């Protein structure tokens, strides 16, 4: 059987499906009529993405300003160029992806999972290329401090990003949470790169990079919990006892 023949069968079969009744359409129109008023469309996508990038930059700079720019001062020109270029590029990509997630029917270039994987792998590669001090001192204790510091700054960045796009509508809230977390995680890494003067390869590769997946996972988990809670309230309304 050829594809064209299957097309014909499907088209013919599609015509057999009943249309909604005029009464249904009228009831839809009536329900909308009562609250119909002009609305302002969302700003252009580039403006939203730029806003998200600004949020990331502001959180990173504010965090580092409070803790000190020791890491930035210790870096040479090449390290600064590569590390911060990578962060800006991936923050822009994550911002664009987050905007897509919040607008139904947007064009998708990268899935949230692919973005997270790509951002983590790229940061890992840049760090592996730049930092060649293979000694380790207090790997766990110092590392946990950096991870927590990065994560603490990822949270406000994610929340502010969510606030900026609150007028949007996430058709997949878990995916949107994952991307918001990735974006926040990149802001968290930004704080660490500006502040942390520990350039031991293992420390930077493990603990700095880990902020991105940790924050992304937390974002997805929060979105999932919110969706689950919404579902539970529906269940309670359906079965009050």
């Amino acid at each position, binding site marked *: 059987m050829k594809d064209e023949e299957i097309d014909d069968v*499907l088209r013919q079969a599609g015509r057999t*499906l009943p249309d*909604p009744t005029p009464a249904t359409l009228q009831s*839809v129109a009536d329900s*909308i009529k009562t609250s119909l008023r*002009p609305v302002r469309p969302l700003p252009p996508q580039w403006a939203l993405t730029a806003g998200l990038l600004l949020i990331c930059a502001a959180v990173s700079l504010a965090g580092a300003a409070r803790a000190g720019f020791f890491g930035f001062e210790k870096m040479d020109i090449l390290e600064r160029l590569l590390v911060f270029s990578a962060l800006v590029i991936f923050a822009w990509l994550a911002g664009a992806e987050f905007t897509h997630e919040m607008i139904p029917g947007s064009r998708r270039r990268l899935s949230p999972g692919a973005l997270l994987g790509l951002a983590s792998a790229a940061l890992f590669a840049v760090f592996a290329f730049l930092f060649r001090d293979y000694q380790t001192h207090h790997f766990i204790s110092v590392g946990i401090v950096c991870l927590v510091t990065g994560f603490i700054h990822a949270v406000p960045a994610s929340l502010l990003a969510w606030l900026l796009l609150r007028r949007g509508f996430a058709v*997949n809230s878990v995916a949107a949470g994952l991307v918001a977390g990735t974006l926040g995680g990149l802001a968290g890494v930004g704080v660490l790169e500006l502040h942390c003067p520990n350039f031991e390869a293992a420390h930077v590769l493990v603990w700095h990079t880990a902020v991105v997946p940790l924050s992304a996972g937390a974002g997805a988990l929060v979105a999932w919990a919110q969706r689950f809670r919404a579902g539970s309230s529906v269940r309670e309304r359906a079965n009050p006892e």
Partner: protein
Amino acid sequence: MGRQACSEAKNDLREHTGTGNDCKKVFEPMCPESNLEILMARYQQGDYAAVSDLIGRVSPQLHRFFLVQSASRADADDLLQETWLRIHKVRHTYRPGEAALPWFYAIARYVRVDHYRKSVRTAAGERELEAMSKGAVAVAGKFDHVESLDALLAPLPESQREVIEMLKVAGMSLEEVARATSSSVGSVKQKAHRAYAKLRETMTTRGKAEDYREG
């Protein structure tokens, strides 16, 4: 839609959205649907006539989409109403000049998934689902006698079914389906290819069975 009407539609969109020549690049390949974009822009401005027109034009497609997925007319009616309420609530998220159909379908898809999730979580919903799945089996059983779309697509997984419905029944392009389903064009192509392989197999088996019965 003729060339003149198409040009008028574009001018109308420019007038309503102020997108100037920017809409041209978005617009050219999808001229037959251009009226939907104009109507959406007018809907955002609070024009009730545009809303009524949109409801009349888009609802049959969305209704078919739900029928193919849910198999019950009452469910499809409910989902359609819920979808329009959701569309009304988030109408500001439509971008003037962008294709409207993927935007509608993305919301309809969300409503369907949300409805499914809620019904799974409630005990009553579980019973409904059981009935629905029995219904689906019954529909599959009717396959030999009824040439209905839900029967034809019954052997396909849900993700392939929705792709086939959008591509072949709603007449959307690969790009539009990719936007509506939040996936890539490659993924849509792959789903369509697998669905066609399955449909070919099912239809061939069915043809052989009919030949055997007749002869």
